[in-house]
C-alpha cells in the first residue's frame, strides 16, 4: 500500500518537474526569438512546412466535417421545423468548437509530429551539438523558428477548416437537401456574433497553436537521442497535444461561453 502512494508521489513530482522544464524552455524560446523575425526566411520556411504542407488534410477534413454537420443538423432540426437554422448550427459548431479543436488535433498529428521527428533526428545525429559548438544557438536557429511557424499557421488553418466546413454544410443543406439558400446565410449572419463567437474561436486556435508548437519542439529537443527515443517522443507529442487541446478547450469554453 505504501508503495502505491510512493509511486503516485514520485509520478506527481516528475510531472511537476517536467512542467518546470517546459516553462523554462518556453522562456528560452521567447528570449531567443529575435532571429525568427529579423531573419524572416527562417520562419517562413517552417511556416511552409507546418502550414502549407498541412493544407490538404485540413481542407479535406473540414469539408467532410461540414458535410456530416449538414446531414446530422438537418435531420435533427427538421423534427422541430427549424431546418432554416441549419446555417446557424453549422457555423456556430465550427467557429466555436470544431474548427479550433479538430484542426488542432489534425495539426498536432500532421505538423507537430514532423517537427518533433526533425528536431529529434537532428539531436541523434549531433547536428544540434555541432551547431552549439559553432557558437550558433540551436534554440535560436532551430527551435524558435519552428515554434513560431506552428504558432502562426495554427489559427490560419483553423479558420480555413471552419470555412471549408461551412461550405460543406451549405453543399449538403442547400444544394443536396434543398434548404432555402437565403435563409441559410441570413440566419447564419444574424446569429453568429463576430466578437462573441468568431474572436473567441480565434483565441482558442491561437492557444492551441502555442500548446502544440511548444510540445512538439520540446519533445524533439528533450528526446533520448536514439531511434527508440525519437519514436517515443513523437508518440508523446501527439498524445500530449491531444490531451492539452481537449483540456484547454474545456477550460476556455467554460470561461468564454456561459450564456
Amino acid at each position, binding site marked *: 500500500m505504501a508503495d502505491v502512494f510512493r509511486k503516485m508521489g514520485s509520478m506527481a513530482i516528475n510531472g511537476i518537474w517536467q512542467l518546470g522544464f517546459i516553462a523554462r524552455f518556453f522562456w528560452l524560446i521567447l528570449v531567443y526569438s529575435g532571429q525568427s523575425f529579423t531573419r524572416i526566411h527562417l520562419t517562413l520556411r517552417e511556416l511552409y512546412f507546418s502550414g502549407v504542407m498541412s493544407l490538404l488534410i485540413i481542407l479535406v477534413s473540414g469539408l467532410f466535417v461540414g458535410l456530416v454537420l449538414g446531414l446530422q443538423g438537418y435531420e435533427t432540426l427538421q423534427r422541430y421545423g427549424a431546418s432554416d437554422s441549419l446555417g446557424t448550427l453549422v457555423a456556430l459548431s465550427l467557429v466555436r468548437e470544431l474548427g479550433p479543436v479538430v484542426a488542432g488535433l489534425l495539426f498536432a498529428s500532421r505538423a507537430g509530429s514532423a517537427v518533433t521527428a526533425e528536431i529529434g533526428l537532428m539531436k541523434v545525429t549531433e547536428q544540434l551539438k555541432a551547431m552549439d559548438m*559553432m557558437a550558433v544557438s540551436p534554440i535560436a536557429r532551430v527551435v524558435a523558428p519552428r515554434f513560431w511557424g506552428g504558432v502562426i499557421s495554427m489559427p490560419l488553418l483553423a479558420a480555413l477548416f471552419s470555412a471549408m466546413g461551412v461550405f460543406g454544410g451549405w453543399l449538403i443543406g442547400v444544394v443536396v437537401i434543398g434548404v432555402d439558400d437565403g435563409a441559410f446565410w441570413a440566419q447564419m449572419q444574424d446569429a453568429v456574433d463576430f466578437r462573441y463567437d468568431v474572436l473567441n474561436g480565434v483565441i482558442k486556435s491561437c492557444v492551441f497553436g502555442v500548446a502544440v508548437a511548444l510540445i512538439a519542439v520540446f519533445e524533439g529537443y528533450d528526446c533520448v537521442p536514439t531511434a527508440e527515443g525519437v519514436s517515443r517522443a513523437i508518440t508523446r507529442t501527439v498524445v500530449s497535444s491531444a490531451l492539452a487541446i481537449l483540456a484547454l478547450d474545456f477550460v476556455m469554453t467554460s470561461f468564454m461561453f456561459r450564456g
Partner: protein
Amino acid sequence: MSEPLVRLENVRFAYGERAILRDISLSIPRGKVVAIMGGSGCGKTTLLRLIGGQERAVGGRVTVDGQDVAGLGREALYTLRRRMGMLFQFGALFTDMSVFDNVAFPLREHTDLPAELINDLVMMKLHAVGLRGAARLMPGELSGGMARRVALARTIALDPMLLMYDEPFTGLNPISLGVIGQLIRRLNDALGASSVIVTHDIQESLQIVDYIYFISEGRVAAEGTPEAIRNSTDPFVHQFVHAEADGPVPFHYPAGDYATALVGGAG
C-alpha cells in the same frame, strides 16, 4: 608563444555518481597535433566536451588560450568557440542543407560578408578537402568519408586556432582513412592551428601526430612522442599498440565470480 594553447590541470569529471575522469593533466602546445587515446568509454570524448565548454569539470581547471573555460559566460564562451572547430564522429552535417550551404553556415552566421566572397571562401575550403565538385550535393548523397571531409571543410570555415576531432577515423575504408589523416596534418600546418584527435586508431595516429596521451581509468596512463610510444615497454601501451585482447585492459567487464553466476542462476 611557449604557453600551450590548451591546458588541463587535475581535471575531474563525473556523470552523477559515475566517475569518468579522475585526475587528468595534459596540455596541447601551439601548432602541434596531439592524440588522446584509450579504450571505448574511457572519457576521451568527454575531454573534448570539456575543452569546448559543453560540459563543466567537477574539479580542476581547463584553460584555452589563457581563458578558464568553466568561468566563461555564454557570450564569452560563444566568442571563444568561434575560434574552435570540432569535427564530430559522423560529421554531423545539417541534413536539410546542401554541401555548399553546410560549409557556408558558419560564415553566414558569424560574418556579414557579401555572397560572392562567401562563395569564394566556401569553394576554397571545399577545394582544400578535394570536394569542390560536390558542392551541390545533399549530405544524404555522400559516402561516409566524403561526409567527414565536408564536415572538415565546415570546421575550418572560420580558420579556427584549435581543431578538435572526435573519432575521425571510425568506420572509414583504408583509403578514406589515409586521406582524413593526411588532411588533419596538412590543415593543421597550413592554418597554423593546433589539433586534438580523440581516437583509438593507433596505427594512423602514430604516423601523423606529434604527441600521444593514453587515458585509462580516468587518468593519463602513458604519454610520449610516437617514437617513444612505439618503443614503449609499458604493458598498457604495449597492449594497445599491438592490439592484444587481454592485458592491463581486461577482456571481461568487471563481474562477480563466474562459477557462482552459473550455479546461482541470476547474475
